[in-house]
């Protein structure tokens, strides 16, 4: 009896779920898995991985805001970075909480302030127009390789101040794949990516050094912030590393996704033609529906009750942002792409103190590239089935066959 009484006070136990978010078929199409997780209540227990999982918008939003309970210090992925044998040291921004986080975030926010990012607009626009002209001449192209990846691989490293080299583009995308595969389990997919990344490890380590930063980029400013004592000296290269790993494929995934949805629905393309300022809305909607970073992990800093279900102290919780972004309790017609939708509250960029610090760069890149296309192209057409690049945590297209009709 006393057990029952204490169970009452402590709340229900999370139901065990036979769900594998990392199976190929689930990565191809995770939506049934999301629905099953949401139907199981606020929290489920993923037996296969020994972690909890959350999938409902109404539970996830407050959890992301409550860093004191749902801490990032256990690591952004399934592995516990506090334990020996972690594959990399923790990120000094993503995987720390206030007060340490506040200091680093403030310094970075200053370096990447909206005013600084606006200064890049002209350069980004020039590249977007060059690329859009090329695409319109070609007529048929791959929306991923020829367009969104080319654009992001040119503009972002230039803004960071990473010297160009023949291998830069491929290496950065490989590091991105490693970063996001590494947030999942140590499965065959991750091992294969790690083996490839081993071959460029020296390039990677050299690229985050101060000497590698081209003057004028924001990478150099990160080192200058360390000189000024705003952040610790040894933190600077680790911050550059975070941008090397996280700034490219997330943005190109968003842009490719937007192109895909727009190509599938000519009426939505026409809405952008009528009012190009709607491209920002198209990008938000693409982020909501595809959620490039599918999930983030948090560690409970105390026993916590989530809508009647108890999660013990020091538990890892997989927070499935992509599920919250299509939660029918939160979104009307959740699967529908609508550039005029009120998208505030989507969680593709996280929320709270850890919300994506590069979000205004991503929006700027997406805006100028889509606008360059919208002004030149009367019709965007899908000429074949797109294919996916499967990754443990990054949802993105590998190919997107498109054709355009010049306006």
């Amino acid at each position, binding site marked *: 009896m006393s057990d029952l009484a204490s169970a009452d006070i402590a709340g229900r136990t999370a139901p065990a779920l036979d769900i594998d978010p990392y199976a190929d078929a689930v990565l191809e199409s995770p939506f049934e898995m999301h629905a099953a997780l949401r139907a199981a209540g606020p929290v489920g227990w993923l037996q296969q991985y020994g972690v909890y999982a959350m999938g409902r918008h109404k539970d996830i939003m407050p959890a992301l805001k409550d860093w004191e309970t749902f801490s990032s210090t256990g690591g952004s992925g399934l592995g516990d970075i506090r334990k020996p044998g972690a594959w990399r040291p923790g990120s000094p921004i993503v995987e720390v909480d206030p007060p340490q986080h506040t200091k680093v975030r403030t310094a970075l*926010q200053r370096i990447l*302030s*909206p*005013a600084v990012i*606006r200064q890049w607009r002209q350069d980004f626009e020039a590249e977007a127009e060059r690329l859009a002209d090329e695409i319109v001449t070609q007529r048929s192209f791959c929306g991923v390789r020829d367009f969104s990846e080319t654009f992001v691989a040119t503009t972002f490293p230039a803004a960071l101040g990473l010297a160009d080299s023949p291998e830069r583009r491929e290496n950065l995308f490989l590091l991105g794949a490693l970063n996001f595969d590494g947030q999942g389990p140590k499965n065959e997919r991750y091992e294969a990516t790690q083996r490839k990344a081993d071959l460029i490890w020296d390039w990677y380590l050299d690229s985050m050094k101060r000497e590698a930063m081209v003057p004028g980029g924001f990478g150099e400013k990160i080192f200058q912030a360390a000189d000024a004592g705003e952040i610790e000296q040894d933190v600077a290269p680790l911050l550059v590393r975070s941008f090397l790993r996280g700034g490219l494929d997330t943005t190109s995934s968003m842009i490719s996704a937007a192109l895909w949805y727009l190509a599938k629905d000519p009426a939505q393309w026409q809405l952008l033609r009528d009012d190009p300022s709607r491209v920002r809305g198209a990008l938000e909607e693409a982020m909501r529906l595809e959620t490039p970073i599918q999930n983030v992990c948090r560690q409970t800093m105390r026993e916590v009750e989530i809508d009647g279900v108890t999660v013990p102290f020091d538990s890892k919780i997989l927070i499935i942002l992509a599920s919250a972004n299509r939660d029918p309790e939160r979104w009307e017609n959740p699967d529908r792409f609508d550039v005029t939708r009120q998208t*505030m509250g989507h969680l593709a960029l996280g929320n*709270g103190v850890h919300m*994506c610090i590069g*979000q*205004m760069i991503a929006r700027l890149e997406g805006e100028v590239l889509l606008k360059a296309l919208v002004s030149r192209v009367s019709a965007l057409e899908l000429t074949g089935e797109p294919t996916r690049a499967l990754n443990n945590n990054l949802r993105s297209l590998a190919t997107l066959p498109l054709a355009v009709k010049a306006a």
Partner: protein
Amino acid sequence: MPMITFVRPDGERIAFDAGGAETVMHAAVGRQVAGILGECGGSMTCATCHVFVEPEWLDRLPPISAAEDELLDATATERRDNSRLSCQIPVSEALDGLVLELPEAQI
């Protein structure tokens, strides 16, 4: 029923009941007031919910935090003495009658 009025750069006024919203930014985005974007949802990363507060209201709003102060230096339309981020103004009954001017640009 806290009635809030936004004044566009061309002088057009938009007044509505902001009751129930978390912040003035949320209220404006919910009403689709063109000129308030609130792209970061109130995480103080974007500076796209910038407003100019009618001077008599300035002292009646919560003080400007260090983070807001820094972001106000990075707005698309240059900061003035009466600049605020509307995501940092919680909605309450006390805001009834608040008048806010919209800047020329947010991005």
